[in-house]
């Protein structure tokens, strides 16, 4: 959970705050957890929702510069998606609809398979593939614009 909050929010302070917020919300909502999904899936949903809200708020406020790779703790550096890819994901997420956001987080941050991502967002694999392809195209354009500066 800490890893994904960090990957989604890009810096230690926000990740620590999000981690506490997610667990606090989970504690308060525990009575409503009916066991239809796994506890991990339930916690993931709460944290995705919270972190996306934080990202949207940060985009509005244009504060908190993105973390540099050197700020990441050593234990998070193992088997991570590339830092610049994550930064792109964070930048692009708020521009997309809720379904694409969920799919992108599941696929690029949680590193689910296409099948697992489709199950997580409740859509078919072909549909999820199209959502993610749009996201990748937008990422490529954003990367080009960044390279041109």
């Amino acid at each position: 959970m800490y890893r994904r909050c960090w990957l989604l929010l890009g810096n230690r302070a926000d990740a620590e705050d999000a981690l506490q917020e997610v667990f606090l919300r989970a504690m308060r909502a525990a009575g409503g957890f009916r066991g239809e999904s796994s506890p991990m899936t339930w916690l993931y949903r709460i944290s995705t929702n919270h972190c996306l809200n934080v990202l949207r708020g940060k985009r509005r406020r244009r504060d908190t510069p993105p973390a540099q790779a050197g700020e990441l703790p050593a234990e998070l550096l193992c088997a991570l998606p590339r830092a610049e890819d994550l930064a792109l994901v964070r930048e692009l997420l708020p521009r997309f609809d809720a379904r694409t956001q969920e799919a992108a987080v599941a696929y690029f941050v949680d590193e689910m398979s296409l099948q697992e991502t489709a199950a997580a967002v409740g859509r078919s694999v072909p549909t999820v593939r199209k959502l993610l392809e749009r996201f990748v195209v937008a990422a490529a354009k954003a990367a080009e614009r960044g390279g041109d500066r």
Partner: protein
Amino acid sequence: MSLALREDDPGHPSRHALARHEAGEGSPAERAALESHLGACPACAEVLAGIAALRSAFHASHPRGDLAAALEAREATRPPARPLLTVLRWPLGLGSATAAVIGLLLLLLPSGQEQAGAERVKGAALSLGFLIEVDGRAVVAEPGRSVRAGDRIQFLLSAPAGGFLHVLGVDGAGQVSVYHPAPGVVAGAFPGGAGRPVPGSVILDDTAGPERIFALLCEAAREPAALAAEVRALAPDPRVWLTSEALPLAGCRQATLLLVKE
């Protein structure tokens, strides 16, 4: 940039699948199959070891006691019921004025129309709506607004007179859930008024599809578990109430709302 789609590899589990396994999740059959694969695949075993190392490093840097203390301190700074309005820091002094505006909006919304997201009971004196957290702000959900798992909402009730309030839901799986009061707590008196927030917010779970919410303003307080049992006993299949505007419960005025979860 290397952001790209990769084809699923049926011969190896995803990192997410390994993370679930490391967290102890999965059916016995799934876990046995994965253990068998890990015994024969050094690459996947290495990824799993990395995930386990991550967990150990986290526990070393975040001792359980420290995290629990931090959560307690965070919890202590909030009011017990933690309504959306307080958490989202609406300015002091505007609270009652804001609630009045919300109440006015709810009363002005068309009544007697069946709409997903916000429904008004024909001719009823009670009216139920909800706030939803969007971008860190509480907004009144407009008629037809769908919701998603993980969304945080807070119910709003307009009633000409008070009573003992109970809020419960019946979903597409036939599950009956009591949202207010909290488990083990007997309902307290809820005052009449326009657009009053029901204490506490709700984080919506994974069950997709419709959920019929009933607000019951009753002459007497009921204990949540007993109320849920009573509602389940009203019909062989509680899903019959999804299309109903009221539960056949004596002694309670009612308002209802249909949530549709994507």
